[in-house]
């Protein structure tokens, strides 16, 4: 508990939350700006989700990304929002690794179309996953506030 209260750690956590939150808001915004079917095609190109789930996922995921991004930045429901970001990052990372190692030449779809999956994509998303797991772990360790 003492370590959670140390100033450098607190500021590091705030910085990570803001960075992760901003990235998620931007990612959701880019997808919402474009036709939902374009993102649906991107999801479908991974061949990991049953086709009947592709449309609901394409229509809701960008809104969810914006929502958790905002919650993360504001610091509201931090346990829930950081855990949601971690789960999403785990899923994205698994999909990206699967596509890369099975030789699929597809676009990442992380920030709209046109970004082929590369080592850079894995490095970026891997770093984000590590950051989100750290934020989640610290949020779960944080003592609950009394109502």
């Amino acid at each position: 508990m003492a370590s959670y209260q140390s100033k450098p750690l607190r500021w590091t956590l705030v910085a990570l939350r803001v960075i992760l939150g901003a990235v998620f808001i931007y990612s959701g915004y880019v997808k919402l700006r474009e036709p939902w079917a374009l993102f649906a095609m991107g999801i479908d190109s991974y061949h990991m989700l049953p086709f009947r789930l592709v449309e609901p996922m394409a229509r809701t995921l960008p809104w969810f990304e914006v929502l958790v991004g905002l919650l993360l930045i504001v610091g509201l429901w931090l346990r829930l929002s950081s855990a949601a970001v971690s789960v999403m990052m785990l899923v994205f990372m698994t999909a990206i690794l699967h596509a890369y190692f099975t030789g699929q030449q597809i676009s990442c779809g992380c920030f709209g179309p046109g970004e082929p999956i590369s080592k850079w994509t894995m490095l970026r998303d891997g770093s984000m996953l590590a950051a989100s797991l750290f934020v989640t772990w610290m949020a779960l360790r944080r003592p609950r506030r009394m109502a």
Partner: protein
Amino acid sequence: MKLYAAALVVLLPCLAAVPEIDKAKTLGNPTAPIRIEIFSDFSCPHCKVLHENTLPLLMTDYVVPGKVYIVDRAFPLNGYKFSREAFGYAVAAARIGKYQQVANALFAKQSDWNLAGNVWPVVAAVLSPTEQKKVQELAKDPGVQAEIEAELQEGLAAGVNSTPTMIVTAGSKRYPLPPAPNYSLLKSMIDGLLPK
């Protein structure tokens, strides 16, 4: 006035740099609200699927009613030995208005020439003797290879890294699609982009 002239001087080379579209490599009405450029390779199996399964659906649903204009673009992949030769004949055939016939034959008989390399008999089968002579002559024209290279470079500049890649243009917006998209999703996207 001076500003207008300066803008013209700057813009004219840009306009000149846009490669002219050979009408034989297009389908539909050029003034259609949506344009789809298809970057493909005659040797690529997914391109064959798109050409034989998706393209006829697009034709019926959108091209014939004048909603979509399709432009074929050459994107010869390095991994296929006879792609450039096939494109050479196809682009040459386009110059005598026989592109679609040659493209259909190259995709239909892909397995016949893709590995063995006997491209010409497949092309010749859909041309008259006079047309065969013209196409063979035109295929040697450096301008034909230059056109293929220009389209390849255009695709690379647009971020194309695999085939088939479709780029949908509606108004001023361009959307590169993932390779071989599901038709129902493609339909949803086109319907969403069409003017209401």
